[in-house]
Every structure is written in structure tokens, then in C-alpha cells.
């Protein structure tokens, strides 16, 4: 299967697009856990976003079967993405100003 190795953001493969759409909906809705049984503390999810190697395997497994935790982790990742994009922009504008 030919594919480029460039770090592209956009999903071009329609099958991948569909997979991601259905998986997101499935993880967000199909595993309600109102009493939050077996959920890791939020710090573990924060850690998973920053230093995934330092988080035990069961946390990731849990995310795949607990919608509230998945939604929290999803929000953490989105925040991380926004933050890194902002930092990149600041570095870029500083570089342009210096040059």
C-alpha cells in the first residue's frame, strides 16, 4: 500500500476517515461509567499525554472501555495540540522578528 511518510495532518484515506469517525463515536458514547469504576486519577491521564512511557498499560486499556475517561483524555490532547501550535507560532514570529 503506497503512502507518503510526511507528517501530514489531514486524513486522505476514506477508510481511515471512516474508521476514525466511528471509533471516536464508539469510544465517546458506548461505554458509560456513571460511577467511574476503575477510573485512573486525572493526573495519570495528564501524564499519559505528556510522558506516555511512564504510565501503566492498564490506563490505555481503560480509556478504550470508559467513555468519561476517554472524553477527558481527548480534551487533554486537544489542549496539548492547541498549546503546541501556539508555541510554534510564537517561535516562528520571534524568528522572523530577529531575522
Amino acid at each position, binding site marked *: *500500500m503506497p*503512502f507518503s*511518510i*510526511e*507528517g*501530514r*495532518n489531514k*486524513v486522505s*484515506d476514506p*477508510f*481511515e476517515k*471512516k*474508521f*476514525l469517525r*466511528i*471509533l*471516536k463515536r*464508539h*469510544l465517546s458514547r*458506548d*461505554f*458509560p*461509567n*456513571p*460511577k467511574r*469504576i*476503575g477510573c485512573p486519577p486525572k493526573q495519570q491521564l495528564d501524564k*499519559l499525554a505528556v510522558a*506516555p*512511557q511512564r504510565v501503566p*498499560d*492498564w490506563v*490505555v*486499556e*481503560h*480509556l*478504550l*472501555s470508559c467513555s468519561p475517561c476517554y472524553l477527558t*483524555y*481527548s480534551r487533554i*490532547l*486537544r489542549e496539548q*495540540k492547541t498549546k*503546541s501550535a501556539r508555541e510554534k507560532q510564537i517561535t516562528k514570529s520571534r524568528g522572523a522578528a530577529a531575522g
Partner: protein
Amino acid sequence: MPSKRESKPSPPFLLNSVDPLGRPIDPAVLSIAQEIAPQAISYAEKLLGDPAVCLNLFEEAAAAVSATVKKRELSGRDAIRDIRRYLYRTFMHRLSQERRKQLSSKTSSESLDERQGTRRGISSLEMSLLLDEVMAACDKLTQEIALRRLEGFSWQEIGTRYGISAHAARVRFSKALQRLRKALKARGIGG
């Protein structure tokens, strides 16, 4: 004096400790089943229509999981790590079987639109089950790659975070997609 209006909590789902086939449900499984019953049964109701049938199927799933738990204990195999997830998936399988049965017994007088609608329901249910299976079969790194991909991270960003190349990250993910494609083909579900 105006009387204060009493608010009654909604009644909990009362599951039997024995399923409709007479098989016992383990107390540990039963307590987890009670937890997930409201959501699982309301989801099933949308597909099957009859809440009583859904409840029976749920109890059957709980009894099947209890039997598996016991079997594993006796044979000294590793215990099921996440009973909640295991039970949910078992119920979904059972639901899918029942839905297929219902579909095959539908009369030919049913309109084409209705038939297409129910087929779509089954496909999405089976797709969810397959996704669970495929994701569970992946290693931790691939699972994390998928979770980041869901949020729109690029291969470069993912690779940097896990200390691998963008290409390696993409290959891992593509292999999981390939497995899903094969599973869909084998079950005759449109990918």
C-alpha cells in the same frame, strides 16, 4: 400548608441472579451488570424494540461471562482483567445475533427503506464490535497512536512523542487498519 413534592429516584434495573436459561450469575458479575444495565439495555432497545427481550439477552450475557470467569478460575488461567468491558462486548455479540435472527424472519412485505435501515443498524453494531476486537488486539503503543490520531495529530507529532519515526507510527496504525479491513471482509460488512 403546601406539601413538599417528593422526588422519587428512578427505579434501578433489577436483574435476576439466574438467567432465563437457568444459569447462575456470579455476584461479582451481577453487581457490574447492574451498573451498566440501564445504558446497555436502552441502547439494545433501540435496535430490538422490546425491553423484556433485551433484559433477557443481558442476563444471558451476564451468565455466560460468569461461566467464563469460573472456568478460568478452575483452569488456573489469567482472570479477566476488565469484566465490565468483557460483559459489554458479550452482550453486544448476543444482541447482534438476535438482530440477525430478527432480520432473517422479516417478511418480504417489509419496505425496502425499512430493510436498509435495519441493515445499517446491524452494520454499525458489528463495526463497533470489530473495532473493540481490533483495538484490543493492538499493543499499547498502537492503541495510543490511534487515540492521538483521533484528535488530528500528525504522524510527525505522534512519532516525536513516542520516540519513533513518522513512518513507523504510520506503519503501525496501517497494520491495525489492515486487520480491520480483513475482518470486515470476512464478515461481509461493507468497509
